[in-house]
């Protein structure tokens, strides 16, 4: 079954107020084209789940700067002073999680489970008394699953039935989000026929993917960020 979609139609499926996961850690894995189309279409009141807010003027930061995001669930926004300022001014609600906890909350939703028991941060200020569970003589912190209606994913390569392959450090949250969201939208610059991948090399099985947007090419925002090159 072909899952190919136009950029416009794929993003038009997302209503205002939706909860949307977005792949990527820094630039790698960030679905810039899908985000830019969401900026163009203008849906508002979004809750976004993403490791970081990208850097000012890029990727998720554009969506936030454009006032379309009500709440951001993330791990670290230290590279984005503008978003920190919006948070400090009260214009953007931000919820922080330790990075591995965010990954695991998403993966737990992706596994069809509802929460997990951990000891991470259990005696730190990120833990409230109501998060604690006494169970079989031990104390745990309960981390609840974090699902979403939509996920936006960048894949290096894909086939029509939705099998995905990621590249470099761009894997990060993407396979987890593809499992966890009800409707998974993928962009890729390299879409081909089924059979192109060795079955054991597929990172995300096609069953988790709903629509695939082929990109004609990768724009400059997918390239090397000069200020991160060490001289």
């Amino acid at each position, binding site marked *: 079954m072909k899952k190919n979609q136009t950029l416009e139609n794929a993003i038009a499926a997302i209503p205002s107020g939706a909860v949307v996961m977005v792949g990527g*850690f*820094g*630039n*790698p*894995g960030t679905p810039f084209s899908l985000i830019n189309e969401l900026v163009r279409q203008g849906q508002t009141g979004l809750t976004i789940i993403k*490791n970081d807010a990208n850097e000012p003027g890029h990727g998720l930061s554009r969506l936030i700067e454009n006032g379309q995001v009500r709440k951001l669930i*993330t*791990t*670290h*926004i*230290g*590279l984005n002073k503008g978003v*920190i300022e919006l948070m400090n001014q009260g214009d953007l609600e*931000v919820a*922080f*999680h*330790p*990075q*591995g*906890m*965010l*990954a*695991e909350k*998403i*993966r737990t939703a992706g596994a069809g489970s509802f929460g997990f028991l951990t*000891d*991470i*941060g259990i*005696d*730190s*200020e*990120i833990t409230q008394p109501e998060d604690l569970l006494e169970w079989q003589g031990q104390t745990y912190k309960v981390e609840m699953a974090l699902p979403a209606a939509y996920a936006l994913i960048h894949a*290096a390569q894909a086939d029509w039935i939705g099998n995905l392959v990621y*590249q*470099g*450090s*761009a*894997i*990060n*949250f*993407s*396979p*987890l989000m593809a499992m966890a969201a009800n409707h998974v939208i993928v962009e890729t610059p390299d879409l081909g026929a089924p059979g192109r991948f060795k079955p054991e090399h597929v*990172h995300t099985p096609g069953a988790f993917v709903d629509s695939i947007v082929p990109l004609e090419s990768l724009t400059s925002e*997918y*390239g*090397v*960020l000069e200020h*991160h*090159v*060490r001289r």
Partner: protein
Amino acid sequence: MSAAERILSRAVNEITPGSIVNLGIGLPTQVIRYLPDDFDVQIHSENGILGAWKQSPPEAMDPFLIDAAGAYVSLREGASLFDSAVSFALIRRARLDLTMIGAFEVDEQGNLANWKIPGKFSPGIGGAMELAQKTPRIVVLTTHTDKHGRPKILKSCRLPLTAKACVSRIVSDLAVMDVTPQGLVVREKLVEISDADLQARTEAELTFAA
């Protein structure tokens, strides 16, 4: 040698052959530049890399391959790439041997504060809490005092903790100190400095090894 260079050139000796090491954002990620090209180590980057290596030359730079600080890295032979859940499983299962990490404050019980200055700086916790809580050996790389000359090595941290009693060793620009049940023990000095002068720049009480 600058303070940073003193820290980095001493810190590189903390890495033992055959080990798996995470380098935190800031000074630690720069340690990689001080490693000999054939050194037997696997560098873990929390964003899903085991076997990260030095920055590639511009023509070979891969925009899809960065470390946790956003710097473009290369991969060694035998590297593997994986998702964030596996990356932090590796951390929480204590499969790392060593994490080098920065600090706002560190204290004589080995408590570490490096993620939040209430009212001033709270960009989120990133991977620090899990690294600090679960790595068998944590070495803190830090300047001995802050830019105002105030001690960063304290009797007891005042900022919100990243993790309790997690630090094994502190490498500052002045000295190498171990966290022991008897408090901080100075193992080496990295500059010419008297015991009294080093103690004066340190809030925690220092013991000087014989």
